[in-house]
Structure formats: C-alpha cells, structure tokens
C-alpha cells in the first residue's frame, strides 16, 4: 500500500498519547498502594495529562489531512456496528475526553472520598481505570482497522493488534520516563524499567510479525484474478498509460532495497537505540531519556511507513504492466 503521512502521524501520535496516559495511571495505582511515592496532583498528573492530550490532539489533526471531506467527519461515527474505522472514530474523542477529565480533576486537586476509605486519588483512579479500558479499546480499534481486512494478508493477523498496543505502550512509557526525569526523579527507575520491558516486548512482537510476513502464502494469484487456469499468464496492458488511483494508492512505489533499508532503520531506531539510551539514562539523565524518546518516535515513523508499505494488495495483480 502507499503509506499516507497523515495515517503515519495519526497512529504514532495517538499511540504515544495513550501510552503516556497508561503510564500515568500505572504510576498512580502503584502510589495508591504505597509502592511508589505519591506525586503532586497538579505538577505531575495534570501536566502529564496535558502532554498526553497534546499527543492525542496532534494525532487528530493529522487524521483530518487524510480525509477528502473532513467537514463531514462526524458521519464517520455512524457505522460502529460494522466498521472498525467508525469505532476508532468514536473511541478517540472518548479517550480525549477522559484524559481531559483526568487532567482537570488533578489540576483542581479534587479528591472526594468516594468509597469512604479515606485515601486520596479515589476519583482520579476511577477515571484512570475507565481511561485504561478506553485506551486499550482505542489500540484494538486502530489495530483492527488494518487487521480486519482479510485480503491484506500482512495485516490480517492478531499480531497487528498486539503490536499497536506494544508499540504505543513502549513510546508512551519511554516518554513518561523522560518526563519524570525532569518532574519526579525518584520515579525514573520505575518508568525506565517498564519502558525497557515494553520496548523489548514490542521488539519481540514486531520481529514476530516480520517473520510471519516473510512466510505468507498468497491466497490470490493471477489465475484466480482473471479466472484462467494456465501456469503462464502475462499481463500485456492494464488499460491505460498515465497511471490511475489503482497504480498510486496500492503500491509504495519504492524498490525492494529501499524497503529493506527502512526495515533495518526502524528496527534500530525504534528498539536498539532507545533500549540502549534507556539503559544509560535510567540513572536519571533527562537529556538522554528525552533523546531515547525522540529516537524511538522517529523510529516509529519508519516502522509505520514500513507497516503500511509492506501490505500487498491483491488488486496489484491487475496492474503489473502498463
């Protein structure tokens, strides 16, 4: 497929936003049972929620560039019964609303004793728990937009969804590690460790999908495409010479070697370098941790480009020779 930059930025940015929100809620739940020191509502959680919000808004803006008619975008929420894209369109604003609510409650330091147990953060933990479910629902919706198209065989796998969760989580936790290095240094080890674990898990998942995709057995071939049973069929003309939507949308337009170098680039930038930087920076060096996030995010742009480009659409069988 031809990777659209709007889609690349949408999926990577909201991934960071969701991951960061999950990181905040994880820290808050650990603190609730006194496994971590409690953080200031306003300086830590509210600022963190604001940053998560900025990533989500960035993703939303990127998505607008993908649409031919963004002014009719609201219509995309109507077919949630059948369309994963519609579900994503519903869950994304829901996610943003919850992150906003979470931030606002923290900002006003509003901690009513909901359950009569006398501890702080009860309301925000409830919002956090709902937000966690919604964040996962958003990851699943985003992943299923791709995984549900069965004839794009590179995408049609549970690994697609798993990788969206892990890659979003990894980038969110890496960002959170850099964030706490400036904001709450005693949490760096906690977040840094999780960032390393999730990044490593994402590496395993992504390499797993690379292996799977290298061994795909194609269901369609030129014989089934035109319905002629002969081992030797050659296209002589696709019916036009100047290109069309079919020749632009379904192929990345680069050679095999470019694809391979993008694959190595994303493997190094998304996983190897950030793991190294996280390991060095976990001592509390904010600059290195920020660099870890920066490198990982750039790596994710390459990763998403590759993910989109690698999918081979069966319609390409009809467009092999001008």
């Amino acid at each position, binding site marked *: *497929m031809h990777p659209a930059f709007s889609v690349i930025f949408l999926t990577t940015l909201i991934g960071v936003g969701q991951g960061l929100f999950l990181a905040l809620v994880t820290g808050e739940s650990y603190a609730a049972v006194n496994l971590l020191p409690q953080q200031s509502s306003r300086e830590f959680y509210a600022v963190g929620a604001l940053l998560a919000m900025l990533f989500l808004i960035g993703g939303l803006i990127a998505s607008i560039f*993908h*649409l*031919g*008619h*963004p002014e*009719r*975008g609201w*219509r*995309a*929420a*109507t*077919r949630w019964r*059948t*369309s*994963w*894209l*519609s579900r994503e*369109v519903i869950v994304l604003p829901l996610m943003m609303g919850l992150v906003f609510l979470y931030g606002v409650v923290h900002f006003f330091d509003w901690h009513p004793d909901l359950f009569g147990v006398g501890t702080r953060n009860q309301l925000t933990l409830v919002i956090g728990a709902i937000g966690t479910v919604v964040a996962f629902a958003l990851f699943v919706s985003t992943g299923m*937009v791709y995984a*549900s*198209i*069965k*004839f*794009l065989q590179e995408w049609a796998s549970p690994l697609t969804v798993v990788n969206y969760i892990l890659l979003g989580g990894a980038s969110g936790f890496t960002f959170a590690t850099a964030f706490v290095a400036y904001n709450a240094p005693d949490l760096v080890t906690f977040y840094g460790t999780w960032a390393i674990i999730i990044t490593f898990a994402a590496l395993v998942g992504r390499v797993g999908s690379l292996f799977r995709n290298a061994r795909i057995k194609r*269901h*369609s071939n*030129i014989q*089934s*495409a*035109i*319905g*002629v049973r*002969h081992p*030797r*069929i*050659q*296209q*002589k*003309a*696709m*019916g*036009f010479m*100047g*290109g*069309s*939507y*079919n020749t632009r*949308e*379904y192929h990345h337009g680069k050679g095999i070697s470019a694809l391979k170098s993008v694959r190595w680039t994303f493997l190094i930038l998304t996983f190897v370098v950030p793991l190294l930087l996280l390991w060095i920076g976990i001592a509390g060096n904010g600059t290195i941790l920020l660099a870890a996030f920066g490198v990982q995010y750039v790596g994710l742009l390459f990763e998403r480009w590759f993910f989109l480009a690698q999918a081979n*659409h*069966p*319609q*390409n069988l*009809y*467009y092999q020779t001008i």
Partner: protein
Amino acid sequence: MTQLALVIDLNVCVGCHACVTSCKEWNTSGQAGPMFDDNPYGQDPTGTFFNRVQTYEIGEFPNTETVHFPKSCLHCEDAPCVPVCPTGASFKRTEDGIVLVDYDKCIGCKYCSWACPYGAREFDEQQKVMKKCTLCVDRIYDQSLPPAERRPACVMSCPTSARLFGDVHDPDSEVSIAIRERGGYQLMPEWGTKPANHYLPRRKTRKVIHEDELVRSDNPLRKEEIESEHSRAPTLDDWLM
C-alpha cells in the same frame, strides 16, 4: 430478490475499449457530477474511470492466446467494501443488489477501496469522494428511455455483444442461462465476496474435416471434364446408376 449484474463474455471481447469510453461519457455527464480528469491533454494524463479493459497473454509463444479482460465493480453479493465504510456512504441496495456510494455522505477516507480485493473503486481527486460503477442506475430505470435502452452504457456500446446485463437471481434470465450453460465464473472466489458479475471463459470453436470431405462425392471436376488429380474419381451418378 433481484441481483442485477453484468456477464462478460471473454470469448468475444475484442478489447476495443468502447465500453470504457461510453461508460465515461455517460457517467461524466450525469447528475452526480463529472468524473475528474487530471491533465487530460498534457503529460501524464490521469483520471477517474469506472471500467477498464486489460489485456493478458496466456501461454508461451507460439501457443499463446490473447484475452481482453474488462473489469469494473462486480457488485459483490457479500461486498466487503460496504461494512467497512464508517459513514454508511457505501451501501448495497436491497431491491436490486447494486453497490453504490452516496457522494454526499462520503468523507473520502478511502477505506472502502482498501477493502475491495479487485481494485474496482477509484478516488475522484476533484470531488474528493470515492467512485465506482453504478451499473448505470440512473439509466436502467429511466422511464423516458425506450425499454431497449434501459441498459448500462457499456452494454449498449459493446460492438460484439460481449456484455450481457440482467438479474442473476432469476434462473430464466439471459445472464443466468449464459452462466449456467457457458461455464460462467467469478473472480477471486477465494475471498468469499460472491461477485455478482460473472465472466464467460474463452472457448475453442473447432471443426473437424475428414479427408473424404475434401473430395466431393458428386465430383464436379469430372462432370465438367477438367483434367486433374481428382477428376477420375467417381461421381454420385456412378453410384446411383
């Protein structure tokens, strides 16, 4: 339940692109707005079409055969492009099974085109909506046209009558009979999309001529007293007398 569809006879299609041209002509002039052409008279012209004719070579020289292969939306009975549309702009009509896009609802997200394994949908870069074959829905029900013209533009224009149009759910329709009796098949059946359009395969028309048929038993050469290798052979009269 009606399912309108095209049945395309690959045995007689000569690859003239008349259907492509008349499809474009009819549909670019319709009430749904033009089908955009970018740079039509300049370098690298490109544009939106509902129908394309492609050419394939089967076999290895000298035993090759050329197949001209028209391709448009197949109006799948289990159309994968419809449920994925987030807006409901893509829909399949219950009354006649035509798959359509509502250009006023489409947000141009292109997701449906990813979900069509046949590449039958084309994005209109000017109107910013997804377009595809409508089976000339604005023509086939037009009461102001004589009944014989209430057929898709491509079917009307085909000089070899390679395109048949009708209800594939009606077992007695011309298209159903053609599918049944002439080996009609569907494209990429492996995806379970159940395309309504069918294709009729190439057929070989062979005539076996036996040696003795080359020499008329009623030998005109002998009768006309032309001397040749065969003029001595018997005539019909020799047997009868």
